[in-house]
């Protein structure tokens, strides 16, 4: 053991010390954090009186952000595992449509339709992943094919079965159903009644609901979003499986050589992405009471944008679920905030593009510091 290993300090002399403040700042979510602060500052300054920050307004952009969050979590974990799913939007439309067909056309109990829909959609997600793994094709192409296949079925099925492109009547059919309630219901109603009673939030002043609070509970959609973000974050950063996700996306070959079951990890992430899309679809169908052939259009890109704003690397192996959640929040707040501020809605895209560019530039810079990329 008398080998001439150089003294340890020597390997360090060329590494600059980083102050702990800077170290705390240097994290994958920084772009998302800065973006969130910028967006809130902007709207607090320019749209404070628009109703955007009263209880109804907050609920409005929270719901929209929560929708983005649900699909962003799936897209985030899949992207970190090194793959894309472009079929998310079509999957949302497809899932909604088959729930409608099961409950309304076939008359199944809502819980059974929802359950079957989850099984079918997760299986399709697994098929996506299996094809990607078996053929070695880029997931971009494979899931692009499913984008068309699923959308095609979503338009075709209701026309053949019901002779229309929107199937309604789901609300009545799922009234009182326990599983439907877990997606379309609201919780903490009592809390909001109390808040209304003590005057903390506004109540209706006329009409049939006079005296009731304008916000009467937290929609299950938001609970799902928060739950999925927490689940995704813990899975990614605190478990063995999370390490495998990073490894599979960072370098599949190296991971495989180290004994990581890369194919299994990737296929499971495709299934999770499909699961998230289905959660989105069920919540939406339960809220609207109907399924439409055009639901979920372009959602895959919105999810990917939220994930990228959140600091993930498009090529995989790096990213953060919390960052993706912030990306989704930015998305929701900007979209609804511009509406509240009375800004022409087409400017939403301009604003979003600017934020996307800004956050991604910042993230690239941070990532270089963290990972020593050149």
């Amino acid at each position, binding site marked *: *053991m008398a*080998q*001439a*290993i*150089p*003294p*340890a*300090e020597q*390997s*360090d002399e060329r*590494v600059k010390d*980083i102050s702990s403040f800077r170290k705390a700042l240097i994290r994958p979510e920084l772009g998302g954090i800065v973006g969130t602060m910028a967006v809130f500052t902007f709207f607090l300054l320019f749209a404070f009186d628009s109703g955007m920050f009263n209880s109804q307004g907050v609920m409005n952009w929270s719901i929209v952000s929560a929708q983005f969050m649900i699909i962003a979590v799936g897209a985030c974990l899949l992207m970190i595992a090194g793959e894309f799913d472009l079929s998310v939007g079509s999957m949302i439309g497809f899932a909604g449509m088959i729930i409608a067909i099961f409950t309304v056309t076939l008359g199944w109990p809502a819980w059974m339709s929802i359950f079957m829909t989850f099984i079918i959609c997760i299986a399709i997600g697994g098929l996506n992943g299996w094809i990607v793994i078996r053929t070695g094709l880029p997931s971009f192409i494979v899931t692009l094919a499913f984008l068309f296949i699923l959308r095609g079925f979503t338009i075709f099925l209701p026309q053949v079965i019901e002779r229309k492109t929107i199937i309604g009547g789901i609300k009545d059919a799922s009234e009182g159903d326990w599983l439907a309630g877990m997606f379309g219901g609201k919780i903490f109603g009592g809390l909001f009644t109390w808040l209304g009673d003590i005057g903390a939030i506004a109540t209706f002043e006329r009409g049939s609901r006079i005296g009731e609070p304008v916000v009467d509970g937290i929609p299950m959609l938001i609970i799902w979003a928060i739950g999925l973000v927490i689940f995704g974050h*813990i899975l990614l950063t*605190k*478990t*063995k499986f*999370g*390490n495998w996700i*990073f*490894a599979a996306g*960072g*370098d599949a*070959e*190296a*991971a*495989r*050589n*180290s*004994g*990581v*079951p890369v194919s299994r990890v990737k296929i499971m992430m495709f299934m999770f992405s499909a699961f998230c899309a289905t959660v989105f679809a069920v919540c939406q169908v339960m809220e609207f009471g109907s399924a439409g052939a055009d639901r979920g259009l372009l959602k895959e890109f919105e999810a990917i944008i939220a994930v990228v704003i959140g600091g993930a*690397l498009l090529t995989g*192996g*790096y990213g953060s679920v919390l960052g993706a959640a912030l990306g989704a929040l930015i998305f929701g707040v900007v979209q609804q905030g511009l509406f509240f501020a009375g800004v022409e809605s087409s400017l939403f895209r301009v604003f979003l593009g600017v934020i996307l560019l800004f956050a991604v530039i910042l993230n690239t810079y941070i990532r270089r510091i*963290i*990972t*020593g*990329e050149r």
Partner: protein
Amino acid sequence: MNTQQTPIIEMKNIEKHFGRVIALAGVSVEIHPGECHCLLGDNGAGKSTFIKTMSGVHKPTQGEIFFEGKPMHFENPRDAIEAGIATVHQHLAMIPLMSVSRNFFMGNEPERRFGPMKLFDHDYANQVTMEEMRKMGINLRGPDQAVGTLSGGERQTVAIARAVHFGAKVLILDEPTSALGVRQTANVLATIDKVRKQGVSVVFITHNVRHALAVGDRFTVLNRGKTLGTAVRGEITPEELQDMMAGGQEMVALEGSLGGTV
């Protein structure tokens, strides 16, 4: 080196074909316990392909593998790792975007119970990583430092330390020194020597004769997918090894014109 004992790995007439390409055309090598066995050969000789059949990445087209005297069929790298064969591959040893500690425990994550869940025990992983790196003479800024920020030599060292920590009986190193500078090469060679003294067999691949002679006990030369024979330390000169690697004659002529500097 006692050549009478059973070899820890015996590779018999290994052939590997990729479609019409015959990468290995019958290679036989014995790895003895505790030796440093150097595998030499020019680029494209089949060295990487050969050790990949040893580490479960490729299944040989023909030939037999005996591990500790028993026939072995590795279905995937995990099987080989579990048997005690750790490999540091030529290009793909570590994941640069991940932290040192996440890399160190990749595929071997320690877990602790937290209520009904099993969580990655980061505290333990970080502590072990820092400790093992210190033993190897690398002072990390922190266990969460990304591997991408390490130098090539440091990366090789992390990979070697990882293999040793998980109790490898055989450590395969595919050209660990080919991309390194002089100082880093010396460090890696010192590490190889240290590892061998702990009783681990080392398969050291290189095309640099001087690196091989610095640490090797036995030397096997591969040329165009075939073994040209195995030599024992002290029974062969650097020039002879060099000639065998280059396939003989041409090199002699070249060497003459270059004044014996290669």
